[in-house]
């Protein structure tokens, strides 16, 4: 099994506040990897290191270790961030489509990359919306505002937007936190489809979701990776007592 992201001894700090301590793991390609753990354990921070979106926050930096994608340390100063983020898409906790039409939301990443040919855009937008299982619901109102969609539809639109330029890896930061159970179910079904083409890393608070969708699960606590393994094993037969306590609901 090839790994998509190699994390080696990563430590991370916001200014002087250390949030990640010596995390190492290999994220497998074309599988779904779930990060679980109590709030503030650093799982979102770790996810946000993968596309360096943490760079937006002043004072946030990796203090030790390396994160490698395609055997290149993505924290090197000569990395083309825009190209990196085209390869590693991201979906956020709260659905956040732009104040544009449905079509323009999906076409955004292509337009900023300089693609303006109408026919190409049409095709890619259609494919992305189909992949996100949204096409049938919106094909008649592509040029209407994205804010007219329901919450679940907006989140699927954000997924379509993230996969429009065919990334290799898709990062999802609690994608269902703001959705009702039915919309959540739809997204989970979608994840099953998407993992055929993309490597998916998902942060979730919902342990049931982790068991339903993920192939591998990482449990984090207080900025440390406590346990990482196949999902079934981690939930049914945890090696670490802390993991056991968390998955059985004794704390967290």
């Amino acid at each position, binding site marked *: 099994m090839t790994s998509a992201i190699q994390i080696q001894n990563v430590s991370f700090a916001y200014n002087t506040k250390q949030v990640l301590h010596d995390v190492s793991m290999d994220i497998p390609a074309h599988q779904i990897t779930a990060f679980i753990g109590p709030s503030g354990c650093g799982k979102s921070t770790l996810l946000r290191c993968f596309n360096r979106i943490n760079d937006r926050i002043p004072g946030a930096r990796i203090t030790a270790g390396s994160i490698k994608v395609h055997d290149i340390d993505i924290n090197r100063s000569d990395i083309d961030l825009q190209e990196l*983020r*085209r390869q590693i898409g*991201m979906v956020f906790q*709260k659905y956040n489509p*732009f104040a544009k039409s449905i079509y323009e939301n999906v076409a*955004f990443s292509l337009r900023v990359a300089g693609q303006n040919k109408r026919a190409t855009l049409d095709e890619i937008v259609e494919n992305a919306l189909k992949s996100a299982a949204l096409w049938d619901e919106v094909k008649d109102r592509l040029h209407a505002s994205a804010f007219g969609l329901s919450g679940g539809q907006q989140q699927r639109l954000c997924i379509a*937007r993230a996969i429009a330029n065919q990334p290799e890896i898709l990062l999802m930061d609690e994608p269902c936190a703001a959705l009702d159970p039915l919309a959540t179910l739809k997204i989970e079904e979608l994840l099953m489809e998407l993992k055929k083409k993309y490597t998916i890393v998902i942060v979730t608070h919902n342990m049931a979701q982790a068991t339903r969708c993920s192939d591998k699960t990482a449990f984090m606590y207080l900025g440390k990776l406590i346990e990482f393994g196949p999902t079934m094993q981690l939930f049914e037969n945890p090696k670490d007592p802390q993991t056991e306590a968390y998955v059985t609901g004794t704390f967290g």
Partner: protein
Amino acid sequence: MSQEEISLSPSHHRFQKRGFSCEKAIKYFFASNAGLTIVILVLITIFLLKEGLGFFPGYQRELEVYRIAGLEFVDISRKNLTAQEQLTSVLNRAYYAEINGQAAREMKRSKEASALFNAYSEQTGPTRDLVVNNSQAASDPKSEMLAILKTNFEKQKVKALASLPATPHLEKNERADLIESIRTRAVDSTEDPPLVAALAAELAAAQEKYAVPLQGMRATIDSFSSAGSELSSLVSEMTESVTATKEKIQGADILEKDRKTLLAAAASAKDLAEREKLTSEATASLAEKPDVEGPIQRLMERRADCVKAHQALQKTTGGILAQLPENLRQPDARRLLKVARATWPLFIADLEKTPAAIHAWKYDAPVPLTAAISSFLTGKDWVTGGEWQDFYGILPLAAGSLMIALVALIIAIPSGIGAAVYVNQFASPREQGIIKPVIEFIQAIPSVVLGFIGILVFGTLLRDISTWDSLQWIPGFPIEERLNIFTAGCLLALMSIPTIFSLSEDAINNVPSAYAEASEALGASRFQTTFRVVVPAAFSGVLAAVLLGLGRVIGETMVVLLVAGNRIKIPDFSSGLSTFFQPCHTLTGIIAQELGEVPLGSVHYRALFVVGILLFAIVLAINATAHHFVNKMKH
């Protein structure tokens, strides 16, 4: 327990409130403050409306008198006469532009030489006068004083010679000669230095030389100018008689008003004797009805003369256009001639229509109230305190306000929004800490100070810059008036930049950071994120900022009063972009300027109130629209 039982229960139950608490008192205090502001606003509105709305009936009566007395009839002819005079002036300007344009070199040289000499004379003038005035005396104490005066003068002279203006079009040796001749010139000499005189003569010769090929044009202009003389004398003759009629009618109006006041007083008087006295006074002051019919009939008899005079004018005018030269060399002259050619058909058409208008005019046609309203809203003249007839048309003022607002916004929108985008999106915290307070500090400058700077520094600087040879390609340069639409617009831009900046910055800041984050996560650069996601999302807030800036610009008074030049005239749009360098007057400025001088309760006074109401309505509408956009942004 039923409802009734609760209300009847003894008042000492511990759930029941008792007495008047301190909190309640504080609440009422705040409520009364809020209420007071509303009451004051309502009172202001009522006062404005009460004072203002009386304007229209008053103006209607003025227009009625204007008609009955025959002033309107005279204006039919006068309008054509004015048009003819204006055309003559345009042709004259073209003529001189052609000559002076060709003699430009001579003109500049002569101007520079005399400017240099004038600068010297201005500085040394007072001390020189002292020397000259005292040099007659010969006695000892006087001669001692004279010596002191002379040394003073010499000192002044050296100082003045050290700070002479530049003369880019004079040869070096010419300048040196000129300075030398000034230095060695006799104290009491009244003659110009030789070079100044020589250059003036050179200029005159050049002008004369270039005038030779234009002799035909000169003659044409002169014949056109004199073609209106018959009409002109007719108009001034009629003017006298109609003015007299008008005065009679106005006198009678005033008496009538007094009588009504007396009668009203009599009706409310308590005792009988008092009432009788007042009534008899009222009867005594009953004015004779002024004789309107006589003069107006005599005026109507002049109709044939008027028509004849017009026909004479028309006959001469018809051929003039063909006689004007086809091509002039100077661009300015060509432009002016083009303007004359363009307005010519209109002038001719007006002349052709005039006889019919003269015959159709009726002195007893009624003036409806709507005529007063439309004359106010669409009138092209704001003429007050004149001997002839007052007109209250707001177009020149509205045009001035709009032009200034246009200039101000053209400057303030890009710089205000640009600064906001930069500060919010790209500036380092250190830069933010400097730029924001500095821009907001502009707001603290009192507008009268800003106007003062506008007149003394900016206006003068702009006029000086506009004379630079390298900038002559800009339309309107060199500018004729130091105080004009552009100067006022620039200062108002400065005043509205803080408003636009702060509110736009707020709007951009209010865009959820999730948008920017999503955009960057999709591979957009900072720049793309700013301009494709953040700024569009802030659009309605930015629009509101611009509108509030506009409201501020329209309502600003002090700066425009000081800097706009205060010429009450619709800007001459035929001159293209240089229209922006013409002086103008504004809706706000006119109130500030004239309200202190008008008699209380007069039609003019009320007209200013209506302008105030109009401004109030405009600014209210702008602000309401802005709030609409702000609310839209908040969803």
